[in-house]
């Protein structure tokens, strides 16, 4: 069993969430609660990472992060090491391709909060941030959990972009998904099977436990 890859995958999934979720949730809230011309186009743009084949996105990202690009050089100076083929690069790529999973469910959840509740929050004199973390966030929780779970699952399973941007370096960018893929490619089906099973079990337990917790939470407050 390739434990290094397992750990790396889980780490990537967690770090991606850490960087992706806060801006994604804020963006979702903004899209949910404001209305302006061209909003649908922004929503469309945010869905686009789903549209291109991962390897192709990966290739474009690689070019953007590579030593020949402005961005790549800038990052290299900043971090002291190139972005491509590094864990940091992986996190950025992974966060980018997960945008649709993170934003959409959260946006729908914020949209579902009733006008009444928003008005009550205003009348209670809550500031933007107080409203956000005491009222909106708890009420949008099921949607945000959906976002987290889909991001989590997709980061574990994503391999086109990760392979392209990460370069399959054991311990640094070789995730479990790539490791499984390699096993299948080299006809090592039993190892691939074991690792797939492990990946499935880890994910299933994580997801089921999270949903179970949220469900218990929600039962306390079915809409009044």
């Amino acid at each position, binding site marked *: 069993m390739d434990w290094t890859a397992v750990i790396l995958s889980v780490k990537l999934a967690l770090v991606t969430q850490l960087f992706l979720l806060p801006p994604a949730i804020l963006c979702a809230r903004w899209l949910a609660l404001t209305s302006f011309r061209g909003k649908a186009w922004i929503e469309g743009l945010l869905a686009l990472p789903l549209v291109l084949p991962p390897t192709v996105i990966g290739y474009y990202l690689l070019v953007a992060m590579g030593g020949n690009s402005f961005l790549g050089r800038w990052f290299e100076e900043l971090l002291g090491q190139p972005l491509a083929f590094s864990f940091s690069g992986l996190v950025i790529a992974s966060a980018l391709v997960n945008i649709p999973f993170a934003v959409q469910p959260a946006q729908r959840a914020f949209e579902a909060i009733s006008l009444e509740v928003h008005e009550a929050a*205003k009348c209670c004199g809550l500031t933007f941030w107080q409203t956000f973390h005491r*009222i909106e966030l708890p009420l949008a929780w099921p949607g945000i959990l959906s976002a987290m779970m889909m991001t989590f699952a997709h980061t574990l399973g994503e391999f086109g972009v990760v392979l392209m941007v990460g370069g399959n370096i054991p311990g640094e960018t070789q995730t479990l998904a790539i490791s499984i893929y390699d096993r299948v490619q080299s006809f090592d089906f039993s190892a691939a099977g074991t690792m797939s099973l492990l990946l499935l079990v880890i994910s299933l337990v994580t997801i089921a436990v999270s949903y179970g917790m949220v469900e218990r939470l929600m039962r306390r407050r079915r*809409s009044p």
Partner: protein
Amino acid sequence: MSLFLELRHNGPQLDFSAEIPKGQITALVGPSGSGKTSIIRAIAGLLKLKHARISLAGEAWDTERAHLPTRERSIGLVPQHHGLFPHLSVMGNVETALSHLPSQQKRHRATECIRLAQVEGLEGRHPHELSGGQRQRVALARAIARNPQVLLLDEPFSAIDRGTRKHLYLELRRLHNQLGNTVLLVTHDLDEAAQLASHLLLIDHGQLLQAGETTKVLTRPRNEQAAQLLDIPNVFSASLEKTPAGLAELRWGPHRLQIAATDRTPAGRVKFAVLPQNILLVKTDKPWGSHLENPIPTQVQDVVALGGEVLVSLQVKGLNEVQLQMRLPERALRRYPITSGSEVTVCLRSSDIILLE
């Protein structure tokens, strides 16, 4: 020094301008759909109108250019549909309005407000575990928690029984006496308005019909529409004549009614109103003599008992289309039984006749 309002909008329709006296309880009364909630929401800054000027004692809340956000207005609102936070307990709901206080004081003040609103014992419940009236009271507790300068109550007692309501009236009055805040109370219940409010605004179709002290407005409607809204059934047409002595008289079909001197109303067709409880029944066995003011012969059409009171419909002699509604305590009929068809004389005292515009 008052809450000044000038509101215009369509959908909801509003064309309204009024001054609500500071530090008083003012009732906002009007039929369903007349725009009461819209006015309250405009004051709270929740409804943006085409044209709104709102200022509290000189502090501008809404002008042509500026719009003070709701959270910066010193208001407490009990909305018509309570609007509690579904994910918070009763205590949590009230504490949310107290985010400016340190945690211990918060708990203390919240407990106090919950007690005032008569919902103690329910602190740990979530809104969906409360009855309609309990939710309304929690919303009240939340609204008063911040000691707002302006308390906006949109039918806050509609789902609450008489007994609890009485306690709440007391608490509200006590609170108001302590803090001297400006209270705007939307209600359909004229008794409630009479008991709580010193001033009353009567609105219909988004327009101000009459404003003034509660007792004045309730007993002296300015026009027919106001009379209708105040549930005064006896509104009639007559023609006003000035007598040479400077007095005025109403010609009402074959009857003549002496009325209190009026300079403002010119002679001609006018409408007048009489409150049903102000119609006096002339008891035939009593020696009234000269006390008889404006006696009118009538025939009883209908007698309806309403828990302790009786509503009598009278057909005025010589005025076939006119029905006069009289309200009497049930007891009054024990000694002078009146039944459908009997003939009675009633008095309309001149001071009880209200000339409408």
